[in-house]
């Protein structure tokens, strides 16, 4: 698989918080579904802002498809076009005064011709089911609609890699389901996704790889089942195990499941149990 984004020995400090990111080495490959977990203040949001060049790292390198990203405007625009961030708080991201103009902000900043902007905007709107709301001012949308709008904002810039900062933080259950569906749709369309989350069950069932951050350091980077088998690490960082993982372990101990059969969701669990004699 091709590496999209590579961080080499990246360091970032805020004035009031040194070592927000410490010696970070990370490769994100095309088509991956990454979950980023860790406590509040572990460096997840900082990581995202660095990946997009909004925060300028003090030490280390960022490479996109092998090309080193300097601090020049053109390099930053190159990076920002390919790596999109969906912010945690939608209100922080919304700037336009109608849904349509909001989505057009990114493509207009890419200096695309008007016709191209228009087609991208309408495509992003239909992907996110916003076409009927196109004239509505964003601050009058509901929480779920706002979240869809912020995703459409980023989609209209046609990024290859999309970073979601705690996307379910302000959403109700129905919209959380909607979001999960959106994530799998986007993945099917070939986007590479990175999602930071506190929902450990979601991370376990959705991600192909999980990054665990603790106090600014990447302390684990593994497949979900491998990561959750490391008990010492988990208790050290205060991360609990996903429910289905624990159930899998119990069923393995009882001899109902074989080693390596780790159900991630209710459907998988049913399938494993149905296959039993």
């Amino acid at each position, binding site marked *: 698989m091709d590496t999209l984004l590579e961080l080499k020995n990246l360091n970032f400090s805020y004035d009031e918080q040194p070592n927000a990111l410490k010696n970070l080495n990370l490769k994100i490959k095309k088509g991956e579904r990454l979950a980023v977990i860790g406590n509040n203040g572990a460096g997840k949001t900082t990581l995202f802002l660095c990946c997009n060049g909004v925060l300028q790292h003090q030490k280390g390198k960022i490479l996109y498809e092998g090309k080193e990203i300097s601090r020049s405007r053109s390099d930053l*625009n190159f990076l920002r076009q390919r790596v999109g*961030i969906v912010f945690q708080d939608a209100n922080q991201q919304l700037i336009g005064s109608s849904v349509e103009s909001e989505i057009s902000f*990114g493509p*207009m*900043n890419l200096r695309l011709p008007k016709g191209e902007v228009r087609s991208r905007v309408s495509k992003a709107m239909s992907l996110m089911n916003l076409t009927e709301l196109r004239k509505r001012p964003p601050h009058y949308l509901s929480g779920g609609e706002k979240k869809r709008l912020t995703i459409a904002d980023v989609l209209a810039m046609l990024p290859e890699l999309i970073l979601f900062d705690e996307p379910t933080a302000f959403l109700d259950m129905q919209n959380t389901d909607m979001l999960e569906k959106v994530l799998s749709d986007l993945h099917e369309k070939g986007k590479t996704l990175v999602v930071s989350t506190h929902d450990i069950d979601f991370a376990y069932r959705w991600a192909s790889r999980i990054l665990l951050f603790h106090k600014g350091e990447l302390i684990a980077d593994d497949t979900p089942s491998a990561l959750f088998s490391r008990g010492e690490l988990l208790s050290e960082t205060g991360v609990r195990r996903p429910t289905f993982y624990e159930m899998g372990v119990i069923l393995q101990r009882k001899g109902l499941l074989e080693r390596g059969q780790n159900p991630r969701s209710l459907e998988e669990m049913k399938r494993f149990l149905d296959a039993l004699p």
Partner: protein
Amino acid sequence: MIFSLLLAALVLFLLLYGLWETALIGLIIVCLLFGALLLHRGHFHHHGGYISIDLYAQKSRLCHWHSGAKLIFCLVCAFISVWAKNIYVPVFIFCAMSFLTLALGKTPVSYYLSLLTVPAVFILLSALAIIIEISPIPEGVLCLPAGSFYLCVTKANQEKAAGIMLSAFGAVSCLYMLSLSTPIYRIFEALRKMRLPFVVIELMYLIYRYLFILLETHQNMVYSAASRLGYRSPVTSLKTMLNTSFNLFFTSLRRASGMYDAMEARCYDGEIRFLMEDESFDMAQVFVFLSVPAAAVLIWIMSRR
């Protein structure tokens, strides 16, 4: 609301006193009925009436009209209304603008009226100050002794107050016609096309955007303070108010910088650009844009004879 109603009744009474006694009672009753209707239906929306102006503008049937032409049209009409210095022209402009906003634009009447009450209070108060004159001797059509002075209403003052009040209402109706049919970003775009310096428009837009953040932040703080009994007594209220305004500054600053990050993430380079839908410009608009000012000028010429 009741205050503005009483104020309107009082000013009307003083304005017309000695002119139109028989019609007076009727007028006041009409005024009160009208006010009762307002009290019943049109109330300010919970988050402050002005915030939803943009929402109504977006829904207006006049929204797709050419915003540059609308802007010039409204400014010209407001100017004529103030400059005419007679009572017929502003009345005509007020009616024409209200017709455009309500009948063509389909803005809800209750919302329009509730918006009008805000400037109405200011205008009525200033009219009151003009009508009533403090004089050492009794004169004019109505006199009330007040200690060693008299509060007098003279015919000249009545005319002056009526003129000023009506031209103010005329001008206000022009501005409301514009703001209830044109979302703010279209106004900015029109100004940009008129070669207003880019920095100014940019600043206007950001101020407009941050205003919402500020209001929202403030609202949340007030709610959370109220839920912890922050307004239980006048002294606590004062303390809470000081605290919230101090915090408001820092919270807004932090949110503003978060917003800037989000803009940067979408390639913001110091120049705000949005896609503008095309605006139509048809004969109906040309007719309205030309006929209203022309008719106003005609009325002005005729009333001078």
